[in-house]
């Protein structure tokens, strides 16, 4: 292979700035999407464990809809198709009027998709806590909402910290799909550097290392969270 290695290109302007900018868009899209995914996913997961058939159906419908369509297709649907379904002025606003349309669409799309996955984990966590705990709470006169608030949610979220960590990591990696609708995040910038300088190996190595860097930090943070949340005496839930 005849390849001219030139790591210096990464530190040259404007390529260094591109990497920095791409990196910060990756972080921003991912964090905004995660806030949405975590909140909405919690609601969806809880709905799926309630006594009401109607609420369960809403939760199930949401999960089945969003997890069964490829994320890439969802990106395209939100960006290209959804605005066309709206009344003309609203559609225009979504395409051009709202602040940073590509970023907003990508973050919401990624958030809604990940919410379906978070929802399933929340549901699994609540079911793992078990009917016995629910009954114990109800038997002492707590309302069903109070049982969730004081018993089921605090215990189940501790149980699902490990899979939630995976989901949080996945959202950073999935955020690279935002490039398909024009968000200049890390992968997009790496590609752009490759196109301008033909130093693709360096550019994508840098991007890879940056992704690994972020996910490692997330893993470390989540390990601390897991340790702090561990319940004394419960080995199965502790971070050992």
């Amino acid at each position, binding site marked *: 292979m005849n390849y001219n290695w030139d790591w210096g290109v990464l530190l040259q302007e404007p390529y260094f700035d591109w990497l920095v900018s791409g990196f910060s868009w990756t972080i921003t899209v991912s964090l905004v999407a995660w806030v949405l995914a975590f909140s909405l996913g919690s609601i969806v997961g809880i709905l799926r464990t309630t006594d009401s058939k109607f609420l369960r159906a809403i939760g199930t419908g949401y999960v089945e809809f969003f997890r069964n369509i490829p994320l890439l297709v969802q990106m395209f649907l939100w960006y290209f198709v959804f605005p066309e379904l709206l009344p003309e002025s609203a559609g225009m606003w979504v395409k051009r009027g709202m602040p940073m349309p590509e970023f907003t669409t990508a973050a919401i799309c990624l958030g809604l998709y990940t919410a379906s996955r978070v929802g399933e984990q929340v549901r699994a966590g609540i079911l793992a806590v078990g009917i016995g705990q629910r009954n114990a709470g109800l038997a002492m*006169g707590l309302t069903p909402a*109070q049982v969730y608030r004081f018993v089921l949610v*605090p215990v189940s979220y501790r149980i699902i910290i490990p899979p939630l960590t995976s989901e949080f990591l996945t959202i950073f990696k999935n955020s690279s799909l935002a490039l398909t609708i024009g968000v200049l995040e890390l992968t997009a910038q790496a590609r752009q550097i490759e196109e301008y300088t033909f130093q693709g190996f360096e550019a994508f190595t840098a991007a890879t290392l940056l992704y690994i860097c972020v996910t490692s930090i997330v893993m470390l943070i989540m390990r601390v969270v897991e340790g702090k949340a561990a319940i004394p*005496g*419960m080995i199965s839930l502790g971070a050992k």
Partner: protein
Amino acid sequence: MIELRNVSKWFGDFQVLNDCSTKVAKGEVVVVCGPSGSGKSTLIKCVNGLEPFQKGSIEVDGTSVGAKDTNLPELRSHIGMVFQNFELFPHIKVIGNITLAQLKVLQRDEKQAGEKAHALLERVGLLDQADKYPAQLSGGQQQRVAIARALAMDPIAMLFDEPTSALDPEMINEVLDVMVELANDGMTMMVVTHEMGFARKVADRVIFMDEGRIEEDCTKDDFFGTPRGARAQVFLSKILQH
């Protein structure tokens, strides 16, 4: 105090309770026994509405459990319940387990709830464990905390669903002692258990269930004394021979 009239319940096509009627008077201790799968746990869970039933009626202190307009949380806050697997809340300390419902349901303030909890922990002999987490206690200790937690609500009656079945043999007595004391204090109790020694000691009446039916409902002396129906005799001969 507790009155069941012709209660029937189905899980799908399977009938778990078949026309069950009985009464528990104020201050009475009633032991419910029978082979596994006979519906005794289901029956006791119907009393505080944890299990819905399709036919018949249950009244607790004049309130109908099955009625649509019954405020179940309010009703349940007057009935203590103790479970086979303790079901202490693992993420809060022993003291928090006992104060939670006092604070959130009875709206007692922290000080009142804390004092009540300490008094009850002393009563079940676990005052020194107040700041531990449930998983740091033995099974017998956990069950005593669970009893204290139920008593903290000043219940008018207590339901026990196989309170000693998940315990090591050497821990059974520390739980039964607390229950005997409670019975002697005049608490109204409905106890699902296989502990015939406990039944002999404190029960006023014994209910024997089989296949969803109440087969026997008689005083303790009648149950252990005069010969009963064939199914109860077989049951007794099996569990009393050791």
